[in-house]
């Protein structure tokens, strides 16, 4: 139990730090494509932490954990596609 308590605190701190990072990036007038990639990866990490430790799916059958994880992965991948695919006009 003490380990679990510590894990929750660490997860919360990581979530806050990654949110602060995203906020600071938001101050840039132009967000470079590399930074967009970093933001998307950190968003995936944040989402997965919520799924595993807040929703408590880390210790349940894999299929229940996979559904939100796949959702997160597919949504973030398609967001990346929409940002990186060249716009033809």
């Amino acid at each position, binding site marked *: 139990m003490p380990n679990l308590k510590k894990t929750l605190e660490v997860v919360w701190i990581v979530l806050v730090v990654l949110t602060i990072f995203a906020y600071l990036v*938001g101050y840039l007038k132009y967000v470079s494509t590399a930074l967009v990639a970093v933001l998307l990866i950190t968003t995936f990490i944040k*989402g997965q932490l919520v799924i595993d430790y807040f929703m408590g799916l880390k210790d349940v059958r894999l299929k229940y954990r996979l559904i939100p994880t796949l959702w997160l992965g597919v949504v973030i991948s398609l967001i990346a596609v929409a940002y990186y695919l060249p716009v033809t006009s």
Partner: protein
Amino acid sequence: MSKSITLKEKYPPGDFAIWIIIYVELITFGLLFLGYVFSRRGDIELFNASQLSLSQTSGFINTFILITSSYFVVKAVNSIKSMTQENYKEFNTQASKWLLLAIICGVAFLMIKITEFSHIFGEGINLSTNKFFMFYILLTGFHFMHVLLGSVILFNIYQKTKIYGYTPDDHRGFETGASYWHMVDLLWIVLFPLVYIIR
């Protein structure tokens, strides 16, 4: 004891029905997120200019608030899971304190969002202003309603903890409400960088 641990490992926390709702909600929001990013490709300059008029600070504070409220809800769930027949009143009280903090966060989120909406609508912006604001109002408005519902659910659970309504054998409703709240948090975690930051 070992039987209970096995069950917890087999199934997600709370009623199974809530997980069907959660999966449907994730798909619905996922489609809206993709609608937003692929529409953006049609007029990137307009989306970027419109996005800059939003308050990123409000978005950041609201993200912090939701993450923290989710943390409080997990602490409340852990309190409820730790109780035994002998100490269930004490743990109901402990859980109620964590829940109250989570509800305060939920209300704070709603107040900040209302302020943001008043500012936007006060400037004459509405659903038909442009595509960016159509998606912004739809996405954040739809999410706002989920936070509102989640706060009401948490308040109902809170009231039940005040009368020591949860026991070691009966706390599934508690976990059901908590799972819904975490879904609301998960959705905002994707929504915040998408609508407020990335351009």
